[in-house]
């Protein structure tokens, strides 16, 4: 199941670059949506530490909301499903694709369509937000490097918009 659940990307193989910024397709990931009213129960089921704060990221697991986490893990990583526990662990690897935006101009390029003030987003933070009309999850990996998670049907549009903004 793991090999089938990570499908090919709707994005071009070739990255593009412009004025201090480079945009490329991210490598494939194993993605899980994790939900639990009690995050301690979820942490016990998956056997991993959770961030403990909305916006935090711990070992590839981002906390998106009070009861919602997104795990971005190496392909092939399997998490226990937590049957009979009050948690939800769902493989959503094929739902989204990743886009890497890096360089001195990375934040400015994303802010061309995202209303967040990225000067106030520290490296190591993640949040769901929006780019014009397209929802995405934005992970700030470093000062000059962002990872975008976007639903695959929206991905070509977002790619094209980033390309037009960068030009």
């Amino acid at each position, binding site marked *: 199941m793991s090999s089938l659940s990570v499908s090919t990307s709707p994005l071009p193989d070739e990255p593009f670059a412009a004025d201090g910024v480079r945009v490329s397709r991210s490598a494939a990931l194993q993605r899980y949506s994790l939900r639990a009213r009690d995050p301690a129960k979820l942490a016990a089921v998956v056997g991993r530490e959770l961030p403990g704060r*909305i*916006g935090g990221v711990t070992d590839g697991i981002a906390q*998106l*909301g*009070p009861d*919602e986490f997104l795990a971005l893990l190496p392909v092939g990583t399997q998490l226990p499903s937590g049957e009979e526990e009050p948690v939800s662990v769902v493989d959503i690897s094929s739902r989204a694709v990743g886009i890497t935006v890096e360089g001195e101009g990375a934040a400015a390029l994303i802010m061309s369509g995202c*209303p*967040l003030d990225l000067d106030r987003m520290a490296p190591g933070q993640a*949040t*769901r*937000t*929006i780019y014009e009309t397209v*929802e995405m999850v934005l992970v700030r990996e470093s000062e000059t490097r962002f990872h975008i998670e976007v639903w695959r049907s929206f991905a070509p549009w977002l790619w094209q918009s980033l390309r037009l903004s960068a030009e």
Partner: protein
Amino acid sequence: MLLIHCPYCDEKRPEIEFAYGGEAHIARPLDPSALSDEEWETYLFIRSNARGRHHERWRHIHGCGRFFNAVRDTVTDKFETTYKAGEERR
């Protein structure tokens, strides 16, 4: 741009991340079949339509995903406060 304080994220976020959810603190009747047509109509359609201070639901749909309540002035569009769902009316 209007900034709205999300009580779950505990920060001010841009308005376009949010969706409006109608008037707040309207409890769904526990036994709808016991209601008269007038009572059911009141529950479904009749709202305070306040001029000024208004309690309303919002959802941080492109953020943490949670519903919460807000007090907003419908004349000035200023948010007085926001608070988590389930908390006392303010």
